[in-house]
């Protein structure tokens, strides 16, 4: 997590996004240099995943909290944005109802449920993108860290959390579109989404926010706070006898990380055009962890690298050899944990900055 690696990463992310956007806009479709719109959106999607990965690395790499439910925060941010985009459709839906989204008309709902109020205002929606994942993380983390639930126990209940949300969002009665989720978006901030220039703008916005996320995360982990955090990760009870309250530290990064994941989800939705309950699947959260492990846990930059590489692989495999993708992903999990504990960034290092050895059963020490 050296300063140089961060700089290189920032330059690549921002520069890459700018070049793609520029080539998409400035070259004719026939040109060899032309970057098609779908590639722009794909790149934007990868960067959203990278935001999720950095969020996971912040809690896992530096606080030792292996969250198997971080995709839930990502999805909640996505839903908050999706609700705004739904309201933007206005009368252009299939049923032409100015207030109710199509799925509500279809379900014979007469009025907008109260929790949809306000989502027609962009500022409110943005606030919700930050608040919903943040508050959930605050409540969940406060309960968990205060009672010193840690290690695999925390992993298991984070997984249960996202599983419960998955089940909940599948219900039509919840008012979030059930199985189909939210889709058919038309504009964002009154700009039509289908335009190439909108996609370029979204890619650039994602790159800028990812860069900001990286810088914030880097500040957190290199500050004295971050040193305490690493101390908590490695010997929590020792920090307590030094007078620190590990629960406050963990809670702070957990909430921060959830908000970051939520922002990633909010940028993801307009770029892929849909959000549905499948995003809550526990498998998604675990996949995000492997991105981090591939790139190098506890390096932040590695999380970006891992997210982009693994998802490039996924795009490639699912298009050409779909049956092999799960084998490849499974093998990746095994090989990285067994052979590459420092991840790709750990390869060049003298001593991998892997997680220290902890005792096997560590119930809520």
């Amino acid at each position, binding site marked *: 997590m050296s300063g140089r690696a961060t700089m290189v990463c920032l330059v690549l992310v921002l520069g890459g996004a700018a070049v793609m956007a520029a080539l998409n806009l400035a070259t004719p479709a026939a040109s060899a240099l032309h970057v098609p719109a779908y590639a722009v959106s794909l790149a934007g999607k990868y960067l959203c995943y990278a935001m999720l990965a950095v969020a996971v690395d912040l809690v896992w790499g530096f606080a030792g909290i292996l969250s198997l439910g971080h995709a839930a925060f990502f999805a909640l941010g996505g839903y908050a944005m999706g609700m705004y985009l739904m309201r933007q459709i206005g009368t252009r839906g299939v049923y032409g109802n100015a207030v109710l989204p199509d799925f509500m008309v279809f379900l014979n709902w007469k009025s907008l449920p109260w929790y949809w109020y306000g989502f027609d205002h962009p500022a409110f929606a943005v606030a919700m993108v930050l608040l919903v994942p943040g508050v959930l993380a605050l409540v969940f983390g406060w309960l968990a860290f205060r009672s010193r639930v840690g290690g695999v126990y925390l992993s298991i209940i984070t997984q249960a959390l996202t599983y419960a949300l998955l089940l909940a969002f599948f219900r039509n009665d919840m008012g979030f579109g059930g199985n189909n989720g939210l889709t058919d978006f038309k504009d964002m901030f009154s700009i039509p989404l289908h335009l190439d220039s909108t996609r370029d703008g979204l890619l650039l916005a994602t790159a800028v926010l990812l860069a900001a996320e990286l810088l914030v995360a880097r500040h957190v982990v290199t500050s*004295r*706070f971050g040193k305490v955090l690493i101390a908590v990760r490695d010997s929590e009870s020792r920090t307590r006898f030094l007078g620190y309250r590990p629960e406050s530290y963990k809670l*702070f990064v957990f909430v921060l990380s959830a908000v970051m994941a939520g922002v990633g989800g909010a940028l993801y939705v307009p770029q892929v055009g849909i959000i549905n309950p499948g995003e809550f699947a526990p498998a998604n959260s675990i996949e995000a962890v492997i991105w981090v492990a591939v790139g190098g846990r506890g390096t932040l930059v590695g999380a970006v690298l891992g997210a982009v590489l693994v998802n490039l692989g996924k795009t490639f495999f699912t298009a050409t050899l779909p049956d092999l993708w799960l084998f490849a992903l499974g093998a990746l999990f095994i090989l990285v944990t067994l052979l590459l504990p420092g991840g790709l960034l750990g390869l060049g290092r003298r001593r991998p900055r892997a997680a220290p050895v902890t005792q096997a059963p560590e119930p809520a020490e």
Partner: protein
Amino acid sequence: MTTRDTLLYLDGVTVTFDGFRALNALSLVLEQGEMRAVIGPNGAGKTTMMDVITGRTRPDTGRVVFGRDTDLTRLDEPAIAALGIGRKFQKPTVFEPHTVWDNLLLALAGDRRPRFTLWARQSAEERTRIEAILATIRLADHARRRAGDLSHGQKQWLEIGMLLAQEPQLLLVDEPVAGMTDAETEQTAELLREINRSRSVVVVEHDMAFVRALGVRVTVLHEGAVLSEGSIDHVSADPRVVEVYLGR
């Protein structure tokens, strides 16, 4: 003795684990500025006593009064640490990925809240204090090394250094010389005496030579209660102590 001189007062503390009494109505008084050695066979409850004082274990009955009238049994570990009670564990635990310097920096007395540490910059005053401690614990040449790379004895010292950095009123030191060479043991005894000039200390130790070298009042624990108390010569002569601990 009067309450004013008393720093720590354990009053009838009992701790049971699944019916097993690790501490059995233990009472103990430590005076301000005193250094006390606690000895006793394995399983006597010495570590458990420290767990109770530092808030790690809650006693079933009994009180632990610190200073004038603070009941420690109502507080948790960070709160007790903030009151000025430092603890060194039996197994040396330093923050291995951090440098020796950073270990001391984290231990320095100061604001422990996230909103402070998030923005804290190292001050010149902090730097001089760390340098002073490094000199005391003889690790000045190793300040930039990873703590995980230190030798066993150096880790023990670093831990003592971290205790000093906390500026506690009372230090609890669990088996500080276990695994040390004779020379290191002697240096450690000297270090503890030096510390004792300004602070109260409770040392748990098995090494009788070390305890003798400290030359302080000794409490012998046995089966969770005080078996004998007094000078080293006094307790060594106590037939009950000889029976359960010293000689068979």
